């Protein structure tokens, strides 16, 4: 139906980036707080925190994309130009 996008998260990269900015900060391996369903993590050795960071990043890019597209439409441009993304970034 639509083009396939690579969907896996670069988890170690995400962790490294956060480490770069805040070396003392740790991401929870599994957090069973908040809501009951979260305790599913305890059965897995994954880091859902990173999946969440990835989700947040995806949403950020989605917003940026939408905003840039709106800007491009407003200036009757057929392609996304740098100024559209810069303006979008300022809004977000």
């Amino acid at each position: 139906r639509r083009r396939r996008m690579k969907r896996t998260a670069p988890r170690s990269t995400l962790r490294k980036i956060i480490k770069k900015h805040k070396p003392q900060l740790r991401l929870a391996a599994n957090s069973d707080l908040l809501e009951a369903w979260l305790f599913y993590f305890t059965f897995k050795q994954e880091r859902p925190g990173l999946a969440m960071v990835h989700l947040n990043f995806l949403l950020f890019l989605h917003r940026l994309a939408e905003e840039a597209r709106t800007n491009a439409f407003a200036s009757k441009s057929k392609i996304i130009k740098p100024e559209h993304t810069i303006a979008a970034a300022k809004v977000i």
Partner: protein
Amino acid sequence: PLHPLQAKPVPKSLRASRKKACEPEVASSLIKKIFSHYVKMPVARDAFKIVEKCSERYFQQLSSDLEAYSNHAGRKTVEMADLEVLMRRQGLVTDKMPLRVLIERYLPLEYRKLLIPVAVSGNKVIPCK
């Protein structure tokens, strides 16, 4: 035999310094792919560079926000709750748009399975509500 030996060290040191300067960041190809998937229209090459820069700024902001949230809770570890609070503040998670829906919509199956429990074998639903 001396000449080739002397010629070698220069590029090697160059290579080493370049490797050291490399900062951890999300692969630009991945950013490009995700962004173009969402815009659904052609994007100029310079515009992608801006997107990359924005992503870097975004991670900087994200890290300090997460630090603030976990510090506020008296923890040194970022937990799921911190991320949910952050996403609520960003206006991504609202009463009409719960986190669960976002996860279902944006993340691939293997991560969904991590974050949202499903019925498992043995007629057990994790977790039981």
